[in-house]
């Protein structure tokens, strides 16, 4: 006590900032912070000076100029008269489509492979190991190129589908023909699939900056409504089961609720399919799914699925064997044990690393440029950047957009993660 009271309180000296452990850590932090701020200031200053030296200014006005180039895959309306911002949006939508489909596919394949890899069946287990090791250990770019080259080099050219008059007279068949009852044509450019057409479509609602397709909106509302009603039916059945121990038969109600309204809507709107047909150089009508898209989705999904499979396997192995032994002791079959006991618990371990796989997949979509897929990197970071010469603006904007997408995915997945964690009661 006496020693403590001997410490002089009022004699703060500058040297104490370094020699006194009470202040030292603060001193170091302040010093590092100042260094960091100076570094950032130097970067900014350097950028500004170099821009000035080259006579360039920092300005996003180019986004509103006419783009002047065409984009192969457009999921929102776009022509070469649209501005660069519109081209950016087209690219962004293309990126998101690949990312979403890729994530869903990768998750499905990954979970199945992860579970199968633990299978007691020697052959299945080894096969899955081979798959995982093969995809994990070869660079993604090579898988993208490989799937693209396979798709474009092994499929017939559109002209191989043509029947000339001489061939018809000689009764010869063309070199290639459409599949699935003559509705789908796979050429070396892409897959032509039928597209839905409506005789009595609802048109679209123009909100100025974007137009809403009312037909699509109607479908979303009807399907959403059906799913909600179905969940009420199942909830009612469960309540009945818990009250009386007797589960009412619901499958026909579910079928009717899920499919009835959609079919009624389709008939009402006059839905029919437009089948692609070969006219001129290419198949016209229907929807063209370019091989660049297919190749990118397949490669991304298979590559990421290999990582997800390992995450799932690790998650399952993290659950104590006692859990499955207890389930078997209760008489549950292996499939139900997995679905009801193991996977729900493993999910808690699986989700956090899964988030980073989703982020990886989303960012890896930018490799699409290798197979001529015009995503955000291809439009904003490729053609727009080149035609306008705004490297800094385009790159910053692109980084910002990827950052935003990633943060949104993280936020959604973290929310889901917190909802499946063990609740402290």
């Amino acid at each position: 006590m006496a020693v403590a009271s001997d410490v002089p309180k009022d004699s703060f000296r500058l040297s104490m900032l370094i020699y006194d452990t009470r202040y030292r850590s603060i001193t170091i932090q302040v010093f590092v912070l100042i260094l960091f701020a100076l570094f950032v200031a130097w970067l900014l200053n350097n950028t500004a000076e170099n821009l000035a030296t080259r006579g360039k200014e920092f300005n996003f006005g180019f986004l509103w100029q006419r783009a002047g180039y065409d984009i192969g895959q457009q999921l929102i309306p776009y022509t070469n008269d649209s501005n660069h911002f519109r081209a950016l949006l087209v690219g962004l939508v293309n990126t998101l489509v690949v990312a979403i489909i890729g994530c869903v596919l990768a998750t499905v394949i990954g979970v199945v492979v992860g579970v199968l890899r633990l299978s007691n069946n020697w052959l299945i287990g080894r096969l899955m190991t081979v798959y995982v090791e093969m995809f994990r250990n070869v660079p993604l770019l090579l898988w993208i190129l490989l799937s693209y080259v396979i798709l474009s080099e092994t499929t017939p050219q559109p002209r191989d589908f043509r029947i000339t008059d001489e061939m018809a007279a000689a009764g010869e068949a063309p070199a290639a023909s459409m599949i699935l009852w003559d509705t789908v044509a796979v050429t070396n450019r892409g897959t032509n699939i039928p597209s839905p057409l409506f005789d009595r479509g609802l048109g679209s609602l123009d909100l100025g900056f974007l137009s809403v397709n009312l037909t699509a909106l109607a479908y979303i509302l009807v399907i959403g409504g059906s799913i909600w009603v179905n969940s009420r039916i199942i909830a009612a059945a469960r309540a009945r089961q818990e009250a009386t121990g007797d589960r009412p038969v619901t499958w026909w109600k579910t079928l009717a609720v899920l499919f009835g309204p959609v079919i009624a809507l389709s008939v009402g709107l006059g839905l029919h399919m437009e089948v692609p047909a070969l006219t001129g150089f290419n198949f016209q009508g229907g929807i063209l799914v370019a091989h660049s898209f297919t190749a990118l989705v397949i490669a991304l999904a298979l590559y990421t699925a290999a990582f997800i499979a390992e995450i799932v396997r690790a998650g399952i192995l993290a659950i104590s064997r006692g859990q499955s032994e207890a389930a078997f002791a209760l008489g549950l079959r292996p499939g139900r044990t997995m679905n009801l006991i193991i996977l729900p618990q493993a999910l808690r371990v699986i989700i956090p690393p899964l988030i980073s796989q989703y982020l990886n997949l989303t960012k890896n979509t930018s490799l699409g440029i290798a197979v001529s897929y015009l995503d955000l990197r291809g439009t904003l970071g490729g053609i727009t950047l080149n035609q306008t010469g705004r490297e800094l603006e385009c790159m910053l904007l692109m980084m910002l957009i990827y950052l935003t997408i990633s943060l949104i995915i993280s936020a959604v997945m973290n929310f889901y993660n917190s909802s499946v964690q063990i609740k402290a009661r």
Partner: protein
Amino acid sequence: MKKSVFLGVVAATTMVAGVASAQATLETVKARGELICGSNTGLTGFGAPDASGNWVGFDVDLCRAIAAAVFGDPTKVKFVPTTGETRFTALQSGEVDVLIRNSTWTLSRDTELALDFVAVNYYDGQGFMVKSDLGVSSAKELDGATVCIQTGTTTELNLADFFKQNNISYQPVTVADDSEAQRQYLAGACDAYTTDASGLAASRATMPDAANHVILPEIISKEPLGPVVRHGDSNWGDIVRWTYFALLIAEEKGITKANVEEVATSTADEEVKRLLGLSGDMGAKIGLDNAAFKNAIASVGNYGEIFAANIGEGTAINLARGLNALWTQGGLQYAPPFR
């Protein structure tokens, strides 16, 4: 005190960086001992490494001429392959000293990209190539076709304009470089391949079945291709420009790689004397040796020789002089007076 030292370092670094970027390109090149020339990733006839790894081609020879003018030695040049996408950034960032890579002179590249096109070494136009069994004889018959196109080029924009003006549609396949475009075109993934007509001829020359491909008659744009330097260093721009003009004047005056020494001793023409550094101190005015232009001619020959050796009639690429003939022979190649 530490802080002030750091601030000093930062200030000094910034100043050095500022000085370095303002330093004349000629000084940088001389100090380095070699010229760095932005070239194609491989376009036969214009700029591509040959079987033994030496860069050869029409654009490459101009690089060598500049190296000969600066150093008196055409081998003191390093070629950096650039794609359509990376070329201007490479030049702006100082990675290359001069870009000679089939680049089209446009207003926005001159202004927005802060570059200077100093000359036009090849007057070109955009064309289309198709397989002859496609049965197409005009680009206007390409309605609905799939067209392969290199990204980062003016051709991308011309293509969109051409199809729009003719009210026909197409499906673009945007590829990164010439070799990928050729692969896709040969595999039949696109019906037509479009780029500068000279590039098409060069591509066709390397195809195994060159006779089965036709270049359609339509030329849909003006593509003046030429050497590019950065904005703001006029002296360096002058060196590139006048080295090129020297090659043109050499052709006009009948000076060739073979006879340049002989002409130098025997000529009575005052302009030739100035060109070969015998009078007028023309080289010194531009910051080079007086013999600079003589060295350039002696190392690669005159414009006509470069053309004939790399892309002219008789080579695999087989391009006629056409617009690129001298003005005295009905072409557009014209050099201002050398005085």
